C-alpha cells in the first residue's frame, strides 16, 4: 500500500481534476478522500460543480470559466495541508439482513466449492465482520465494501449477467456489495436483502453512505417475505 506524501493531480478532460491519494484499496487512503470531499463541500468553492469520491481518488468537476485550473489546484493544495483538521462524522454501523443461497444467492454453491468450504461457512465468514463502505458508485446506492476475509477472495463472473435482481448481495475479489436496483452485473451473488437501499424521493436518497460500516446477518425465507410485505404496506400508506 502506498499513501502518497502529496496528492497526485491528473486531468480528466477540460472540466475534471482527478486528485489521487494513494494506489490501493485501503481505509487510510479512503479516509483522505472523504476528508477532502467534506472540506470542499464545506467551503462551497465557486466554480466547483460536483465531486465524485471513490476508493482512492476524488474527481472534482469544475467550470474553468469561473475557476481556472491553476487556482483550483492551489486551493486543493491548501486544503490538503489542513486535511487532518477536518472532522468526519462518526461512522454509523448499519445491520443488513440477508437471505443467503437458493434462488436468492445463485452463486453461493460455486463460491463454497471454489474455496473448498461449505455454503454455511461462506455465510458465517461473510457475517463474521463489519465492512467499511469505501464508496457508492456504479449505480445509485451501490456500496463498495471491504475487506472480505482472505478465504472468500473470489474472482468476478467470466461473463456478467444481463440482469441482477434488486437487493442482490454479491462478492468480487475482497469486496462485497449490494445491487439496490435491477442492473447488469458481474459479481458473485450469494444472497438477497429485503432492505430498500435507494429511494429517489428521500434526502439523502441512499440509505448507506461512504464511510459507514455494514454488518450482514442471515435471515430465513419467512423473515425475508415478512420484511418485503411490511415494506410494500408502508409504501402503500405513503410512509
Amino acid at each position, binding site marked *: 500500500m502506498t499513501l502518497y506524501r502529496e496528492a497526485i493531480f*491528473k*486531468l*480528466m*478532460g*477540460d*472540466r*475534471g481534476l*482527478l486528485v489521487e491519494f494513494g*494506489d*490501493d*484499496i485501503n481505509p487510510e487512503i479512503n479516509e483522505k478522500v472523504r476528508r477532502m*470531499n467534506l472540506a470542499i463541500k464545506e467551503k462551497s468553492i465557486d466554480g466547483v*460543480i*460536483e*465531486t*465524485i*469520491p*471513490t*476508493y*482512492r*481518488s*476524488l*474527481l472534482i*468537476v469544475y467550470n*474553468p*470559466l469561473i475557476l*481556472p*485550473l491553476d487556482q483550483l489546484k492551489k486551493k486543493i493544495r491548501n486544503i490538503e495541508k489542513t486535511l487532518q483538521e477536518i472532522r468526519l462524522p462518526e461512522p454509523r454501523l448499519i445491520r443488513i439482513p440477508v437471505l443467503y443461497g437458493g434462488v436468492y444467492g445463485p452463486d453461493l454453491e460455486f463460491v463454497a466449492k471454489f474455496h473448498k468450504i461449505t455454503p454455511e461457512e461462506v455465510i458465517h465468514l461473510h457475517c463474521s465482520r463489519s465492512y467499511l463502505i469505501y*464508496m*457508492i*458508485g*456504479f*449505480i*445509485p*446506492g*451501490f456500496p*463498495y465494501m471491504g475487506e472480505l476475509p482472505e478465504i472468500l477472495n473470489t474472482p468476478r463472473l467470466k461473463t456478467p449477467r444481463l440482469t441482477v435482481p434488486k437487493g442482490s448481495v454479491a462478492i468480487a475479489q475482497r469486496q462485497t456489495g449490494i445491487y439496490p*436496483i435491477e*442492473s447488469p452485473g458481474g459479481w458473485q451473488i450469494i444472497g438477497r436483502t429485503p432492505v430498500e437501499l*435507494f429511494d*429517489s*424521493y428521500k434526502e*439523502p*436518497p*441512499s440509505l448507506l*453512505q*461512504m464511510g459507514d460500516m455494514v454488518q450482514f446477518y442471515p435471515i430465513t425465507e419467512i423473515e425475508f417475505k415478512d420484511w418485503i410485505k411490511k415494506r410494500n404496506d408502508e409504501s402503500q400508506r405513503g410512509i
Partner: protein
Amino acid sequence: MMNHKEAFEVLEPGILTTIQDGGRFGYSQFGVPPSGALDYFSYRVANLLVNNLENEACLETMIMGLKLRSLGDFTIAITGADLTVLLNGEPINMWRTYLLKRGDTIFFKKLHTGCRAYISVSGGLAVPKIMGSYSTYLSGRFGGLEGRSLRRGDILYRFNRSYYLNSLYLKFPENWIPQFNKEVELRVILGPQDDHFTKDGLKTFLSSIYEVTPQSDRMGIRLRGPIIERRPEVEESIISEGLLPGAIQIPGDGNPIIILNEVVTGGYTKIASVIFVDLGKVAQVKPGDSIRFRAVSVEEAHLLLKEQEDCLNSFKMKSTNL
C-alpha cells in the same frame, strides 16, 4: 395543476424521446450520474430561443418518429439534429422561434443530419424536480416523466411563467449553428491513464478512424476500429474512479467507449477525454458514422470553451435587447 398548462399530447413517441435539462449535480457520492441533455449547446440555445432560463426542461428526441399535438398557444424552438421537422405537414426551419396554435402537429419525419434534436417550450416542460433536476435517468428509472421515455398518449405540461414573452421571435445566427457530419473529428485531452498504453497504442488511437456501432445509448458510444496496444506490464482494469461525459474507456477487447451522461464511476482505463465543446458532436453521431481523435492542450480547450460562452452570451444580449 395550478401553475401548469397543457403543452402536448404525444401522438407518436419516436425512437427515444426523454425530458432533459442541464443535468443533475451534487448526488454523485450516492452513485447518481448527471443525466441531462447530451448535446448541451443545442439544448441551451433551444431554451434561449423561447426566452427561458437556460436550465428549463426540454425534449430530447432521436433519429425520427416523434409526433406531437399542441394543446395550447405557446412558443417553441427546435435545435440540434436536422430530423426533417414538419409543422402541420409543411417543412419548417430549426434554430428559431415558432408560435404554436392549439391543434398544430409537429412531426420529426426522418433523419437528415446528426442524431438528436431538442424541443423547448416557453416556460419549460413541467415535471417534478428529482434531486434538483428535471432530467430523465433511464436506467435509474427516475426523473423526467416517471423515469421513462415518452409513450403514445402521454400529456406533457408546461410551466405558466410570467417572465417569458410569447410574442418574441428569435433566430439563432446562421454561422453559429453547428454542422453535424458523418465524419467527425473530436478534440481530446490525453489521460488520466494514457500511460497504460504503448507509444504505438497512442499513435493508433490518434491516427485511426473509429466506427460508431449500434451498441450505443445514453450511457456510452461504443466504437470499433484498430486495437489500441496496452503496455503489457499494467493491468487491464484500475481501481474504480469517477467518470465524466466524454471520458474514453478502453476495455479489455481494445475497442473504445465514449462515456455519456448515465455513468458515474468505472474501473476501465481511460486513454483520453473529449473536450467539453465537442461533447455536442459526440451526442450527434449515430451508428455507421466515423470518428477521429486529435489531442489538444487543456489551455486550448478552455479557450474554445470561452469562445463558445462568448457566442452564447452575445446572443443572449441581443435577444434581451430586442
